[in-house]
């Protein structure tokens, strides 16, 4: 317990790095997936190959990606960029399916009504299609955010891993406390991030609360 008190600075620093390394890729991944998914719904032949390719990318082990990326990107092995790019790849490969499914879930009559009242395609995407796709996109976003938070610590094997560095520290010193602190904080971070996303989704889709029958938990 005294270890925690003596190392609050270190713990805080790793927590901050962990959050940064996990969340930045989610944001980047979302920025890439939405236009990509939109293009795939306009040119329907693109959708299935994109989803399949995403599935393959997602099955690559994270440690392999962390190590192979520097060779491809020309970055140093000990660079944060590798982790951010690797997790962004995971985010896009998983999210692309949800974006495509979400955009496909827009009912045709809703789309036609929007066209009929004069929405241009860009305006329609932002004002009609994306809001309707929010629940499906958020399902993927929640999975990928939680998975990213747990994957960041693997980076500690190559020397950059936020809370994961507490694991290697504890292991080297055969000392349980830092490992437990790392696991607990990592879990707490995942739980908190998930809660934030659920709340954000509720804020973004006020209509779902009105439609849901009383007593049904969405």
């Amino acid at each position, binding site marked *: 317990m005294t270890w925690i008190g003596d190392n609050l600075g270190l713990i805080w620093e790793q927590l901050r790095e962990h959050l940064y390394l996990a969340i930045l890729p989610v944001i980047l991944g979302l920025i890439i997936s939405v236009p990509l998914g939109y293009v795939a719904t306009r040119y329907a032949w693109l959708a299935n190959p994109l989803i399949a390719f995403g599935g*393959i990318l997602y*099955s*690559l*082990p*994270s*440690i*392999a*990606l*962390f*190590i*192979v990326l520097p*060779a491809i990107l020309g970055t140093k*092995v000990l660079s944060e960029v590798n982790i951010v790019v690797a997790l962004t790849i995971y985010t896009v490969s998983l999210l692309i399916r949800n974006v495509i499914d979400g955009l496909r879930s827009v009912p045709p009559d809703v789309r036609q009504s929007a066209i009929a009242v004069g929405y241009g395609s860009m305006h329609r995407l932002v004002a009609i299609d994306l809001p309707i796709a929010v629940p499906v996109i958020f399902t993927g976003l929640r*999975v990928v955010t*939680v*998975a990213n*938070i*747990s994957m960041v*610590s*693997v980076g*500690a*094997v*190559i020397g950059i*891993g936020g*809370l*994961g560095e*507490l*694991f*290697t520290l*504890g*292991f080297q010193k*055969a*000392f*349980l406390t830092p*490992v*437990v602190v*790392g*696991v607990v904080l*990592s*879990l707490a971070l*995942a*739980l908190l991030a998930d809660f934030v996303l659920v709340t954000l989704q509720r804020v973004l889709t006020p209509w779902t609360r009105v439609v849901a029958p009383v007593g049904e938990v969405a």
Partner: protein
Amino acid sequence: MWQFLTDSYNWSGNEGIWARIVEHLWYTFAALGLSVLIGLPIGLRIGHTRRGAFLAINTGNAARALPSLGLLMLAVLLTDQIGFLPVLIALVALGIPPILASTYAGLSGVDPATIDAARGMGMTGREILTKVEIPIGLPLIISGIRSATLQIVSTATIAALVSLGGLGRYVIDGLKLRDFPQMFTGALLVALMALLLDALFALIGRITVSPGLKTG
């Protein structure tokens, strides 16, 4: 890296690439086997009786948040030994939740009318489970085992951190020696193994799932 791969010396012997591949597969299948042995019956029981659904759904979600490296270190420090046991514990802890959750999901997705019909035909609970619920839930059950496999293959890499073998050796040793070709080789072989095992499970799914479920 090509040099490392094409040097026949690196392929043979106790510490050669073949030996590492066999070790890695052994860790993977030992852990996968145990995870199935534990996760599948629990998932089937919860799915069949619908009791404890809350547990099944939430272990699936919570497990995604478990940091694999932390779990491994925790297992090493708690068992107070370095070797196969802590690695097995950590891998099984990561393998059980996806199997349990998808097995439950596969069974709970079976249309209640189908189960009623089976009961109406006079099937016992056990017959309903083995002849109706499992076959219909099979695609999801297999996909759960598939994600468990991917998780275990990639995590088995860090077993080398606690001085075990497997393909992770190249990654960890390469990192210490600053021998990057060796690291890339290890990383690529792990990725390749993951893709091959993933394809294998896709194939198993295609072969075992009843043709009656494949329409549409």
